[in-house]
């Protein structure tokens, strides 16, 4: 599913959304559609507008112009209480003076339902998030991860059509974060609730989302599934923000061929750049091939292994191609390759990059990475 394929009947539809804070334009003409039951991540660096967009959808910070439809209803001017969503914040925003059970039942109490019914629902929700016996504790007595799950239960208590998560995992330890990632995703799948999560953590977005909306400077750079965002970034910004990427200045020398220094590269897609034009060639470090690189392999060249940094399961090396001074390419070698091929610093060896792993960007592309 990509931006170009419209969703038949989107659950959430955002059209031409604009929002400024003084002279700063936080959102510029945002268009977005989210299907029912979908898990979408807004991903981008801080200040890119992802949280602003989420808060506009919630009605917490209304937009300056543009429309928002939830479940076919135009809620552009509606206050938050008349939109149908539950929200979880990075700070949890649990009410510290109320017990866990009262926090979870907070939204149910003013709906004039029998007390027993509310209690049953609260018990059900606490079981659902794996905290069945914690109802009588106060939030301050729980760990960060437990508090976050209480916040999730509270947001889901009223069975909202839309679940909004504003950096829900950022305040947690790495281990807890990964555990909760799976739990949230699992819960979302079970309930089928349409979910939007804001995050600046690309790994989190790749692991959890059906689709990722990459944002920068108040515009959407790309919308796509995790593999698409990672493997086929539309812009240098996306390429650089998601994962690691080497950018090289290159000249187009022919159809699907570019030259960097003394090296000629064959690419699968030259982005339609004219012969002779300046482009940027990009490659991910893990696409390097070092095992059995035969003479005829495309994009084969000889390089010196520069600085090597040990990163646990793999090593990141700086390749210095012979005869092209100044060109530096990052390459990741898995631990077994390091061992089998006896890769060490200062060594000269042949490597290659498959043409389909290379991407060409016109240098004037907006949001070009530095």
């Amino acid at each position: 599913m990509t931006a170009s394929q419209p969703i038949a009947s989107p659950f959430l539809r955002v059209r031409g959304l604009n929002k400024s804070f003084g002279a700063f334009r936080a959102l510029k003409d945002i268009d977005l559609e989210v299907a029912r039951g979908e898990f979408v991540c807004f991903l981008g660096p801080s200040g890119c507008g992802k949280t602003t967009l989420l808060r506009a959808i919630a009605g917490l910070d209304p937009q300056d112009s543009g429309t928002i439809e939830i479940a076919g209803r135009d809620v552009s001017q509606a206050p938050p209480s008349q939109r149908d969503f539950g929200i979880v914040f990075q700070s949890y925003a649990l009410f510290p003076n109320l017990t866990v059970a009262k926090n979870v039942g907070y939204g149910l109490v003013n709906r004039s339902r029998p007390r027993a019914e509310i209690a049953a629902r609260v018990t059900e929700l606490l079981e659902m998030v794996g905290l069945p016996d914690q109802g009588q504790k106060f939030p301050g007595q729980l760990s960060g991860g437990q508090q976050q799950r209480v916040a999730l239960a509270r947001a889901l208590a009223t069975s909202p059509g839309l679940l909004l998560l504003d950096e829900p995992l950022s305040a947690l330890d790495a281990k807890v974060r990964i555990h909760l990632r799976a739990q949230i995703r699992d819960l979302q799948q079970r309930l089928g609730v349409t979910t939007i999560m804001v995050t600046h953590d690309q790994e989190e977005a790749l692991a959890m989302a059906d689709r990722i909306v990459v944002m920068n400077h108040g515009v959407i750079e790309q919308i796509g599934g995790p593999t698409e965002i990672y493997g086929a970034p539309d812009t240098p910004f996306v390429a650089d923000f998601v994962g690691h990427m080497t950018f090289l200045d290159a000249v187009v020398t022919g159809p699907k061929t570019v030259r960097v220094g003394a090296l000629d590269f064959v690419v699968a897609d030259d982005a339609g750049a004219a012969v002779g034009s300046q482009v940027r060639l990009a490659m991910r470090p893990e696409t390097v091939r070092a095992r059995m690189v035969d003479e005829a392999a495309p994009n084969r060249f000889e390089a010196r292994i520069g600085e090597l940094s040990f990163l646990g399961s793999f090593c990141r090396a700086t390749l210095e191609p012979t005869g092209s001074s100044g060109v530096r390419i990052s390459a990741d070698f898995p631990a077994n390759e390091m061992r089998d091929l006896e890769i060490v610093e200062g060594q000269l060896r042949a490597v290659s990059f498959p043409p389909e792993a290379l991407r060409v960007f016109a240098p004037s592309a907006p949001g070009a990475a530095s």
Partner: protein
Amino acid sequence: MSEIAARMDDAASSSFAVRRPLVSERQVAGLLIAALCVLLVVIIALPLWSLLSKSVQNTAGDFVGLANFWTYASTPTLVASLRNSVFVAGMATAITVPLAFLYAYALTRSRMPLKGLFTAAALLPIFAPSLLSGLSLIYIFGNQGILKHWMMGAKLYGPIGIIGAEALYTFPHALLILTTALALSDGRLREAAEALGTSRARIFRTITLPGARYGLISAVFVVFTLVITDFGIPKVIGGQYSVLATDAYRQVVGQQNFPMGAVVGIILLVPAVLAFLIDRRTQKRQSALLSARAVPYEPKPDAARDYGLLAFCLLVAGAIVATYGVAAWGSFVTYWPYNLKLTLNNYDFAAVEPTGWDGYFNSLKLAGLTAVIGSVVIFCGAYLIEKVKAFPGLRGFAHFLAMLPMAVPGLVLGLGYVFFFNASWNPLSVFYGTLTVLVINSIAHFFTVAHITALTSLKQLDHEFEAVSASLKVPFWTTFRRVTAPICMPAILDIAVYLFVNAMTTVSAVIFLYGADTKLASISIVHMDEAGAVASAAAMATVIMATAIGVKILHVVLDRFVFSRLQSWRRR
């Protein structure tokens, strides 16, 4: 997925569906904020406006431009009061601030023992009407004073007495500012300097002083303003030495010359407004000084420094406690200083003052009502200003008005109330002289500090409580009742006690506003002193002080043993 989801959909559509509200939250919020603005305009803006407009009118009410100011400047006796005021305020500031700085230094930067006791002793003057320190000095150094010979023939009644009494009275105010300033320092700066082998004098000069610089500036202005606008002390100990505050009283109450009273009021407004503006600026910088990662300074033991400071604090705290103690003692003495037999006769107020004990009960009523109504209004107002997101313009306006009383001395606000609530065109003039206007005036007078206390506690709450409530379709007033107010209860109690103590002890604003049935204890002190019944005046002041301290102790006890149970969620 589908089964649970279907059930959730079902739940959403039927059993847990929200009732449609009759009025929207936005309408309620708008109405409340508008009401707050109207209230603040009536109790703060309009009285001040009346004062300003009165100063450019003649006694007949015609517009005369700056003629009154011109008359003022060309009347030598009035100009002399201005000079006198500046002189005593300057002297008192020069004495109080350095002493308070050293005292605060001892409390924050030494390992001196009994810090709690020394803090309590230094705060004593806050719980008494300002003029009690004047009465005490009369007992000690006055014509019949036990240590009269210490004066070596100099006259107490006049600048010497005023400066001494003001120094005592303003000491805790300066101390509170300076302890805060000195406590707000990054311990790592000092450790870094010590690691570099910096001498102690240089550390003091390059780290301690600059760190407390803004606090010092703030303390200087606060003390200067307190002194220049204080009415009680010059009234009881000033003798023939006239100052601005007594001039304003004489012009309005004695000569019914309202325009000239207004002019004096505006002159008194100048240092207060200046102090306010400088304080605002320095506070912004002060907070920038301390980063979130700063480490508080832990002083290491140092015998010479600790005992030196202990001796100094003993001296200062002893002087304060002794002075106030002498006044309390004197109030029980038959005939000072010739017959020191203890008696309760001085507490039979009806013998010297027609209203007798009624004044005290009026004060209790005033303080109680001010505390209850004031803390509710001020806290709710601060909540609307801080937490409701709609109507930013109106909220900004309300906040501005709430901050204004800080820049307005009580005496000036009292004048404004006279002009506003006494005006024949004003339908509210039926309240003039009633307890109602006294309560309103006291709430307005002490609004700002209480407002800031409320804002500070509200700002500490998670900013998303309101957003979460809205997403759960719970109206903001429910969250206010169930979450916000309970969490802020300690701050609300602080506000109530602050309002109670201040309403109990104030003289300056209410001196223009009381009526025959609503004479207050603090005002009957002034009258008893005028009638020469100094012992009874001291007795009444002692009763006030005892009440204020009693309420404070009650607050501490309740806070520790009762309210802590309601706040059990704070424990981990």
